[in-house]
């Protein structure tokens, strides 16, 4: 079967909306209800965060959601238990985002096989070095048809962007500014970077993440690339909202309309 991420971008090149949520947040068993609501109300892709005790790339909001999820009892094992059979209900592509340590301890090959078995389409591991992936793990991911998605930033050189693009599968994750998640940096300065990405004519679709929080920022990102990723703003809404379904409906409605 063709990877669902590739299917998505084959069918839709513009305005792809990827929403990040933390597994096991706000409550342990909210993972699937949140995913179901995201799909129903129009998310094109779901990025599911695997909580970690020391998430270096994340700002306070996503960190706190991870801390809460861990307190709720979330773990890699529990997540795979929750995901067993989820493809009966969820058809949009799903990506797991997490940090390398828990995956190493689980065993990279076991982890990737489990992803394939559950129907997970891609993985983001921001602290996995490109060279180590190429030398040790690329074959495992490719054999299991699980895409590994790399990040680039405004500080990444053209040459390195090309290297990361050639190893990345599914799409390339363009971090909008040099920051942790959830920082409010002015996006107008990033125009040159977005244009640079356009001009590089990369092999992968590009989604912009970090700092995308509302319709304006989403639309700006979509002008330059295939779509954008929203994390912190959604976690905030989920933390403040009452019931999952109406929170998700309102949140996505405000971005798409």
């Amino acid at each position: 079967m063709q990877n669902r991420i590739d299917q998505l971008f084959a069918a839709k090149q513009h305005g792809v909306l990827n929403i990040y949520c933390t597994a096991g947040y706000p409550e342990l068993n909210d993972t699937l209800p949140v995913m179901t609501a995201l799909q129903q109300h129009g998310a094109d892709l779901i990025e599911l965060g695997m909580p970690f005790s020391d998430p270096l790339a994340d700002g306070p909001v996503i960190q706190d959601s991870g801390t809460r999820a861990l307190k709720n009892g979330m773990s890699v094992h529990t997540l795979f238990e929750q995901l067993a059979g989820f493809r009966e209900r969820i058809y949009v592509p799903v990506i797991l985002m997490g940090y390398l340590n828990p995956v190493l301890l689980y065993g990279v090959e076991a982890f990737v096989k489990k992803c394939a078995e559950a129907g997970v389409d891609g993985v983001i591991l921001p602290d996995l070095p490109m060279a180590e992936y190429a030398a040790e793990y690329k074959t495992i991911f490719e054999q299991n048809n699980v895409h590994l998605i790399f990040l680039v930033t405004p500080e990444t050189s053209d040459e390195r962007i090309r290297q990361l693009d050639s190893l990345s599968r599914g799409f390339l994750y363009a971090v909008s500014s040099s920051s942790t998640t959830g920082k409010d940096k002015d996006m107008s300065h990033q125009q040159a970077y977005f244009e640079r990405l356009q001009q590089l004519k990369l092999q992968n679709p590009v989604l912009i993440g970090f700092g995308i929080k509302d319709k304006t920022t989403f639309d700006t990102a979509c002008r330059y690339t295939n779509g954008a990723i929203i994390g912190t703003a959604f976690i905030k809404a989920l933390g403040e909202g009452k019931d999952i379904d109406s929170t998700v409906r309102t949140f996505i409605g405000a971005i798409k309309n």
Partner: protein
Amino acid sequence: MDIAIDTSKSRYHIDKNGYYGRFGGAYVPEMLFPNVDELQHKYMEVLSDPAFQQEFEALLRDYVGRPSPLYFAKRLSEKYQAKIFLKREDLNHTGAHKVNNTIGQILLAKRLGKKRIIAETGAGQHGVATATVCALMGMECVVYMGSIDIERQAPNVSRMKMLGATVVAATSGSQTLKDATNEAIRDWINNPVDTHYILGTAAGPHPYPDMVARLQSVISEEIRKQLLEKTGSELPDYVVACIGGGSNAAGAFFHYLDEEEVKLVAVEAGGKGVHSGHSAATTQLGKIGIIHASKTLLMQTEDGQITEPYSISAGLDYPGIGPMHAHLYETGRAMFLDATDDEALAAAYELCKLEGIIPAMESAHALAKLKDLPFNPDDVVVVCLSGRGDKDLNTYIRHMNK
């Protein structure tokens, strides 16, 4: 000076990719790649520059007070039936070995054109040493410290503030050293261009473990010269040092790593006992993984979440260990022991009474193992007395009458 010595032939130093055996590397998110890449490409060039070495040496001499004495501890030697020397890092300006590294790194930061310095601190010793060199160089300084540590190390917080640093509370996670380090790394991600991160121990992404070890290697460089003068040989039988992340041990071991006849002893914090659930003995309790962007041994749950260690000494209260030390442990080049809180306290009181020196709680862990090592009377033993005990007076007073 030998801080830029060629170590490419040694099996105990980093290889060309920044690994000690299977430990080390730079597991940084892409946002940090340019910063770490810049350091990787420039640190050896800077450390090898004679002008840098001259400036570093002059500050160590005139500002820090180096060389620190190698003191023959006569009464301690009588008690343990060996020739015991103390490397007096406690006599450095700011009271510990930490300043060797901060002096070196601030000079490096200047050469890289950085305007702003960030650091993490646990007990506050590295924070004070960083605030000190920032004052010296007129640079902006932000120190991250766990909010729990801010409460229990109030005097050092005041010192840092007096020296002009901004102390920022790390309120995430367990609110101690590990989280302060996370916050410092996040600050660096958010300020990639103008900021240098002065990491305080021989851990973190490559090149920090090697860079910090080299800047601390003045300790063993001096020991060799001083021992030659005092004993006729540069080589002792034992070098003993405490180890949290491992910067004083890295410095004390550095120029002895390839001298296999010198026994290297690293003493971890056993806390209330290695298997009590309240310990920081990483080699005993840890598994390989990634902490603070380095592949090394660390304490973690079955699910790969990093756990909170425990030690009476805030400076050893770290769930990982520098990658060099993980490699020394795995290859058997160094012997790893652990000292409990009680053993360390007893050793601290003993040093006070026998030698008139109040050691830091951390250094007392190294002293605590003198009783367990199988010395011959002629053995020459060097203990790295990494810091002084002023900062630990409250702890010492609290336990004195128990």
